[in-house]
């Protein structure tokens, strides 16, 4: 057995010796979807069989910086997520996910009611802004009440990340 999988389109069996007449039985041991080709299109995704979560003919993809992003995933409830920690991320949430509250074609939205002091908190997260060239924040929001007259009051904080260490 080869120490590592070898990717090939064809297998040629060359018979070197035989006794009386040429006869043989052969089979291949095929490694299942456990490792992507080093030069394949799935380089950034599905590197393990457990990561194969796409339909036939597809592969799982994430961007090169996806493992650094923190995301409120559409349709997954009032929960922050990272690529490395999809379901277990510690968070505090009093806001409510409503599957019908999003724009047409979406999978819902998280709603905030000021009366009940509802909010989300994703806990600790590292942003290497200087090292990685900057930051980007993208969001889709809707405000349900008029703003108050006083300028500078914070009606909706999309990302509040107070510094704790540098």
């Amino acid at each position, binding site marked *: 057995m080869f120490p590592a999988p070898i*990717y090939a*389109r064809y297998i040629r069996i060359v018979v070197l010796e035989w006794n009386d007449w040429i006869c043989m039985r052969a089979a291949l041991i095929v490694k299942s*979807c456990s490792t992507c080709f080093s030069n394949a*299109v799935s380089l950034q*995704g599905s590197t393990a069989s457990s990561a*194969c*979560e*796409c339909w*036939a*003919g*597809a*592969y*799982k*993809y994430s961007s090169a910086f*996806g493992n650094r*992003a*923190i*995301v409120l995933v*559409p349709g997954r409830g009032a929960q922050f997520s990272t690529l490395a920690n*999809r379901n277990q991320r510690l968070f505090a949430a009093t806001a409510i996910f*409503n599957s019908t*509250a*999003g724009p047409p*074609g*979406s999978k819902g939205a*998280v709603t*905030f009611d*000021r009366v009940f002091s509802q*909010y*989300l*908190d994703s806990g600790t997260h*590292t*942003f*290497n*802004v*200087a090292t*990685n*060239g*900057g*930051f*980007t924040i*993208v*969001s*889709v*929001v*809707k*405000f*349900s009440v008029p*703003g108050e007259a006083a*300028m500078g*009051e914070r*009606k*909706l*904080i*999309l*990302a*509040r*990340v*107070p510094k704790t*260490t540098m």
Partner: protein
Amino acid sequence: MIIYRYGDNQMLLSLRNGITQCYIFTEAVIVQNTWLTVMATYASSSRNIKLRAGNVTVSGTCSFAVTDRVFSKTYIGRSNWAGDTYSKGSIVCLYAVDALLSEAEISDISDKMYRGEDTLQSCQTCSRLFLPSFNEWRCLRCLSFCR
């Protein structure tokens, strides 16, 4: 890093470095009960900040550089100041990353938000750029659906 509603119908992006603040704000862009796409970027090389809400884009340059930081809280719907009011509204998605994304990448993320798709990962159709038998051999074993 703070993005919030400023006054009645403006959006504001603020970066803080101790007591020093760098901020920009848009003109009136918020329409009550109407979905609004908000995007904010900071480029460490130039210290440029940009805020886009709907079709309105504003930009500026910070006097200080934002450093690498570990943040203890990432809030949506409230601020870190006890006197601030909480929000009343909705949010479809938030994507925050310590990278300066291109317009195309931002647009792709925004489009996924409106379609309700996962912005961290997605299923992509296998390319035929490589030997077809190779891709089919591998991809046909990925039978479960994206989660």
